[in-house]
């Protein structure tokens, strides 16, 4: 990616307060064209506030936010953007097809209706009233509205909450196709596997501060812990007393050992029990990294 590619979304020291609480604290972040950025964090960490600033729904108290190099309030900037909010209540009495027609009309080069419907899996819902749809169906309609204008940047706030496994898979597939077409994406999610499966870059927000930001591999590397799993006749208590072992426990016929130094522990393990079998060593996943980073930041 050439360094000169202008960011589609840029936060410079963006701070937002609600009363005495600082919802977002000096956020520095840029999202570049075609990049999929996932914002992770516990509830109330400021994820939704960060999106609200990017969309111009709220203004930063300090610092600045630029959308396509312009103010997020500019209509021209918003024409490049698609959005799916957690709190979006679309008019209950309008039919899905009508909502789609109205939203498409606001974009200069919208996708064909059939393409949007297929992408979001709402072909069968077009003549139904929005208010009579299930929660998951409504999320899919919101996704269709978000993508119908061929946006160059998509804001997705917890897009797959309330979706079943199949619908989530369909949305992931659509998101990958959009990114392959050069659309940038900023999404917030609770599901770490979602970030792990989709994101180029991940940021972790805790108490309004971006405490970690990088590729999934970089974030994961911040956690030194590794997990050893094997079958062995040794008692977990014995191993727990070894140097460099964080913890050891038994899970059925398997031993689970957590350690920062896998190699010496494995060496000692093989020496102590020549019958060790099914040996696996795992680096911590994004989930462990996330837990450790948020704990350290809290």
């Amino acid at each position: 990616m050439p360094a000169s590619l202008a960011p589609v979304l840029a936060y410079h020291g963006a701070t937002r307060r609600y009363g005495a609480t600082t919802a977002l604290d000096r956020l520095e972040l840029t999202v570049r064209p075609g990049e999929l950025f996932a914002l992770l964090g516990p509830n109330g960490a400021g994820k939704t506030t960060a999106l609200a600033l990017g969309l111009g729904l709220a203004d930063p108290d300090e610092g600045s936010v630029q959308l396509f190099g312009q103010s997020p309030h500019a209509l021209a900037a918003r024409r490049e953007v698609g959005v799916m909010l957690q709190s979006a209540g679309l008019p209950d009495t309008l039919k899905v097809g009508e909502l789609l027609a109205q939203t498409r009309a606001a974009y200069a080069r919208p996708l064909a209706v059939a393409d949007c419907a297929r992408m979001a899996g709402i072909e069968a819902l077009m003549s139904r009233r929005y208010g009579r749809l299930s929660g998951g169906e409504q999320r899919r309609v919101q996704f269709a509205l978000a993508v119908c204008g061929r946006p160059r940047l998509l804001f997705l706030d917890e897009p797959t909450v309330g979706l079943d496994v199949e619908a989530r898979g369909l949305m992931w597939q659509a998101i990958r196709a959009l990114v392959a077409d050069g659309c940038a994406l900023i999404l917030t999610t609770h599901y770490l596997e979602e970030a792990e499966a989709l994101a180029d870059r991940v940021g972790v927000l805790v108490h309004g501060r971006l405490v970690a930001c990088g590729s999934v591999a970089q974030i994961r590397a911040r956690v030194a812990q590794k997990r050893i799993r094997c079958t062995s006749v040794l008692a977990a208590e014995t191993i727990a007393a070894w140097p460099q072992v964080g913890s050891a426990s038994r899970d059925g016929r398997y031993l689970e050992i957590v350690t920062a130094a896998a190699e010496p522990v494995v060496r000692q393990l093989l020496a102590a029990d020549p019958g060790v079998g099914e040996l696996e060593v795992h680096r911590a996943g994004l989930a462990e990294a996330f837990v450790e980073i948020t704990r350290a930041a809290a």
Partner: protein
Amino acid sequence: MSIVIAVPAAAPTAPAPRLLRCYALEAWHEFLRLLRTPMFALPTLLFPAMFYVLFASLTSGSAGGRIDPAVYMLAGYTVFGVMAPGMFGFGVSVAIDRDSGWLQWRRASPLPPAAYLVAKLAMAIVFAALVYLTMAAAAVIVGGVRMPWSDWAALALVASVGVVPFCAIGLFIGSWCRGQAAPAIVNLIYLPMAFLSGLWLPLMLLPAFLREAAPVWPSYHLVQLAYAATAQPYAGSLLGHVVVLAGVTALFLLLAWRRLARA
């Protein structure tokens, strides 16, 4: 040799969509929303004519002087009917759209912000015109009203333009209160205002202090215009009433705008 490709700092923005289509679709959808909410549409259209029929049959006979009771009440109940699409149409639906997050979603989307208000305004005018037609039918059939075409046309104009200040009041109410509370709050303002400006009973039947306070209410000024349109006696100057109504519109629009910009 290397070739440097310059990437423009800001990507070229997309051409503007066809705005007229946005506005037309939005107005059409607003109409569909109302049509699919018969709890709003039916009472708005039928109550004024129903009241008129009830009261006109009670007060038959001539009051003497220049007042023709059937025409006088036609003017009063038409104004009463015209207030509703403005106050309820804006007050309740804006409050609901704000609660549900629809307004927030719109602000994040490229839908033109003004299309929302223009669509609601257009529907309020359509409903005011329909109220006028039902009232006219009731007046002709039950009240036996016969007026020159010019008077009918003047009343139609008063009805369809007269809804605008009440739209502004409704917008202001909708920008402040929650969706569930909105119908009650609108009724609390709408019904007393209608009564106190003499739309139900002629002002001369009210106590003196209420009669003197009547010019406080915007509906008082609109009904004077309706009296003038139908050749009934009216108070004050016509230009004065128009100025007051325009001022009410501007004031409440401004207050609502400031509130909605922050919400």
